[in-house]
């Protein structure tokens, strides 16, 4: 009996170590499999439509609204901003590969030299600073419009985040993973509680969206906000909802979280900007 118990404890310990120290590739497999098994009738790419992939009624209303998407004006403004040269004559295109077109799917990326995650919005602001302009606020406004335009030029391209390699990249990935699964705030909820464990179920009248596909459609125009917001704005709103103090846009915590959640959605097509409730 004692031997049996010892074997049981050893097996449980191995299982625990395996789950925690799984490679990012293994994490992604498990993560995506979790959703495709829970929602077997939904194609992988449809997860990018969030709750509208799960709720037919809501989808019909959303599709009707998409004939005249509420973000259309902001998207046009984003294109105009993108194509307006800086005071020094340079443009956003000069800072990015492929002149900034069809690159959304490659962000965020880990910069080994700087030991930090580079998100698209951060790269936009760094481009501005490099060219003598001031940085834009990270959660909404012009940065969301620019990011929306850049996402639009990537429509249909598959998210292609490089698997974190190297100690520093793995540490950032692991920090993002831990953030996603840690409970916080007075309500004691983790991101995973709502968007993994309870995805597809309701919190009051609202269906909880699956985390698989979240990063495909940002920035989003939320009817609640009545304007476009970045992914970090959404993180901020989630933290506030569980009564935790949110971090600043582009804080290390949120950049690492974005790194983790986007890598989990690798292989899904970009379909942003989008509208949401």
């Amino acid at each position: 009996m004692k031997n049996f118990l010892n074997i049981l404890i050893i097996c449980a310990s191995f299982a625990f170590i395996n789950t925690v120290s799984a490679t990012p590739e293994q994490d992604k497999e498990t993560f995506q499999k979790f959703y495709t098994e829970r929602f077997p009738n939904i194609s992988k790419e449809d997860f990018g439509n969030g709750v509208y992939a799960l709720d037919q009624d809501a989808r019909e209303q959303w599709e009707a609204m998409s004939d005249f998407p509420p973000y259309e004006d902001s998207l046009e403004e984003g294109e105009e901003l993108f194509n307006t040269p800086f005071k020094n004559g340079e443009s956003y295109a000069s800072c990015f590969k492929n002149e900034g077109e069809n690159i959304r799917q490659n962000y965020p990326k880990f910069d080994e030299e700087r030991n930090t995650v580079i998100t698209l919005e951060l790269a936009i602001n760094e481009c501005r600073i490099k060219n003598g302009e001031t940085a834009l606020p990270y959660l909404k406004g012009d940065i969301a419009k620019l990011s929306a335009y850049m996402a639009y030029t990537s429509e249909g391209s598959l998210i292609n985040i490089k698997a974190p390699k190297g100690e520093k990249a793995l540490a950032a990935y692991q920090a993002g993973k831990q953030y996603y699964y840690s409970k916080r705030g007075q309500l004691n909820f983790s991101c995973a509680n709502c968007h993994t464990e309870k995805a597809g179920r309701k919190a009051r009248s609202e269906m909880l969206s699956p985390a698989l596909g979240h990063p495909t459609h940002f920035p989003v125009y939320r009817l609640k906000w009545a304007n476009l917001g970045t992914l970090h704005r959404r993180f901020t709103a989630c933290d506030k909802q569980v009564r935790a103090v949110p971090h600043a846009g582009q804080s290390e915590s949120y950049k690492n979280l974005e790194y983790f959640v986007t890598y989990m959605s690798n292989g899904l097509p970009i379909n942003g900007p989008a509208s949401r409730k």
Partner: protein
Amino acid sequence: MNIKYLFALLLSLYCISASAQPSTQSEAKAAIHGASNLWAQAKSAGHEWSTIKPLIAQAKKALEAKEYATAVHLAEQASAHSQQALIQAEHEKINWVNSLPK
């Protein structure tokens, strides 16, 4: 009435009135100071709750208005929230793995 019972009743009334004495300014200040320390700890643990700051702000307002009992009560609430946030931070250091999809 038996004199013993009367004495016991008077003693109880005295104890109740003594314990219900209004808080002093120094007690309120100490409570706010303690709450602020715990709040700083919750912040540095990365698990600050959004309820803490407003409670401390309200406690400081009550102190300014010389409502010391209210100030103590609010500061104690803020301390309790910070302590729970610290427990949460400690708990999640290990237990976040329980939410991993299986």
